[in-house]
């Protein structure tokens, strides 16, 4: 691992315009990704994890988005690049894998042409060379008959095969960093396992950094080296995967772990996080953002301005409320019953 991180996000704030106001979906996020490292970003829908990924790629519609902070990649700040300069980074140095292979491919273009397109944009390869490389790539992502698939349209392939094509597009130009936004969510379990194994395989070969966006802690456990947990636009905990799964600290992380049905909890009651994920407009903007959902924890346990602190080497937790956190006994109270 070189000393210089591959990607360094500093105090990133991504705000979207709703009406006349801007609301930060990603709020003051700092994160580094090293070469050959898989960093998972976990959270529920609306926590800002996808918005973060799209911010790195610069794919948010400019007229409705405000980006603040820095995203340093290979010595340049991606946020200060012009569209043209950014286009040279996208697809060449950073590749992206999308969630739904059904919609991520152009229905009117053959798979081969779609993979070749990034080579066309970024290299001067001859069409024969591009074709050869595309077929190589298709083979690499585990497509059984690459020559045939090269000429096929997306609708002729199964979901798993399509996702392999999407991955081939992402790694076509040997990027240094791959952002995978829920790459297995839309797939069946057995296909998900295949795609996870494929991604791990590719990563072992190429030593790329991967940012893995997911809501599935199982996928994280299988793939990630380091994990950042996001809640309401903020990172609430970062640690390496073993530490986080052995010793989760932040109340939100612990709640998440407790709410997954797993072999150990058969027929037991699952933990329920009170209340619901606040919408973008209603995000609490000050204090501990998770406060409302653990009301039995006293106010004085929270910090006024919660910071992400290193509590043990490389294990960061936001807010002090984790120290005396305990789960609530009253279980039925979870129905947020009789409100307003």
């Amino acid at each position, binding site marked *: 691992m070189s000393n210089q991180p591959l990607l360094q996000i500093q105090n990133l704030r991504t705000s979207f315009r709703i009406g006349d106001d801007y609301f930060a979906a990603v709020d003051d996020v700092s994160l580094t990704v090293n070469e050959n490292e898989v960093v998972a970003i976990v959270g*529920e*829908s609306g926590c800002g994890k996808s918005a973060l990924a799209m911010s790195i790629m610069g794919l948010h519609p400019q007229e409705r988005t405000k980006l603040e902070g820095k995203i340093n990649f290979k010595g340049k700040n991606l946020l200060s690049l012009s569209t043209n300069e950014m286009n040279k980074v996208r697809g060449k140095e950073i590749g992206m894998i999308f969630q739904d292979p059904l919609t991520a491919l152009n229905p009117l273009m053959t798979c081969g042409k779609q993979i070749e397109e990034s080579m066309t944009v970024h290299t001067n390869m001859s069409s024969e060379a591009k074709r050869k490389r595309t077929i190589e790539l298709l083979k690499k992502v585990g497509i059984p008959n690459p020559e045939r698939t090269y000429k096929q349209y997306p609708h002729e392939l199964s979901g798993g095969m399509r996702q392999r094509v999407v991955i081939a597009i992402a790694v076509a130009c040997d990027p240094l960093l791959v952002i995978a936004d829920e790459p297995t969510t839309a797939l*069946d*379990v*057995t*296909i*998900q*396992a295949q795609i*996870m*194994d494929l991604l*791990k395989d590719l990563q072992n070969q190429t030593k790329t950094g991967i940012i893995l966006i997911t*809501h*599935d*802690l*199982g*996928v*994280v*456990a*299988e793939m*990630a080296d380091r994990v950042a947990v996001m809640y309401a636009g903020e990172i609430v905990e970062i640690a390496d*995967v*073993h530490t986080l*799964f052995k010793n989760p600290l932040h109340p939100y992380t612990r*709640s*998440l772990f407790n*709410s*997954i*049905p*797993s*072999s150990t*909890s*058969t*027929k037991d*009651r*699952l*933990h*329920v*996080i009170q209340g*619901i*994920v606040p919408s973008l407009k209603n995000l609490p903007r000050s204090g501990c953002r998770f406060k409302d959902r653990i009301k039995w924890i006293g106010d004085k346990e929270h910090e006024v301005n919660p910071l992400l602190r290193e509590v043990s080497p490389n294990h960061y937790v936001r807010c002090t409320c984790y120290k005396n956190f305990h789960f609530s006994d009253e*279980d039925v109270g*979870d*129905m*947020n*019953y*009789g*409100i*307003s």
Partner: protein
Amino acid sequence: MAFLKVNNLKVYYPIRGGFFRRVVAHVKAVDDISFELNQGETYGLVGESGCGKTTTGRTIMGLIKATSGEVLFENQDLLKMNRRDFNQHRKDIQMIFQDPYSSLNPRKRVLDIVAEPLRNFERLSPAEEKKKVQFYLEKVGLNPEAIYNYPHEFSGGQRQRIGIARALTLKPKLIIADEPVSALDVSVQAQVLNFMQDIQKEFNLTYLFISHDLGIIQHMCDRIGIMYRGQFVEEGTSRDIYTNPQHIYTKRLISAIPDINPENRENQMKLRQEINSEYKNSYDKYFNAEGKVYNLKPISDTHLVALP
């Protein structure tokens, strides 16, 4: 006596082809399955997309026409009933749908949504009706005052509970839950699952729980049937299936569940590779020449596997 017994159920769809669009073959969405449910238990139907689990549920519910077979509910065949008799039995079987957004009519108020079955089967005065609706809303943990609100004013989990309240009003005996939580976030998922267990006890419900998520199935179900291409490959208690899977497909499915412990990562990957190579090498042992599985054979009192 079985509470619900499904015998040799088949649901085929014709494929038309050729120049004159004649029926050239059939998609066998459900291909000759038999299973039974005991009162009060939760029976899980698992499989990957397109395996026929949803079709099975909907056929029992009468939403899809069966090609052949029997669905015996309390010893009466639902498939042979005329419309009126079937409607009477419908009261006893209700359904929870996957998508909390599309399963509630956006143009109707909560009161009208929950009262719909009451209006079909019981003649109640508006006051009685309102009282009953509020009773069930309270049961599912929603504010009983919210009856004049519209579905879009609720969150996904709350909507799912409105759907459950609607299913409960007729005091059903069997509830078919078709992927009831797969559209929800983890924490909300937990809420709905807990709650389904609560009302099961309270109303002595039997569940046919359909899901693709093996973790949830394991958490919820007493007995499990694994489906693959319209057929059962294995059936057994939760313990049978998860600790002693016999069919290669079941093994594949279970090994594909990501392990929540990162320490097991390498083992898990190795296990998957082993099973994959077993799948390739001993394919003939598990599938016949047409790629179909064999008929179920008991290997213990509770455990059935599709082996030759």
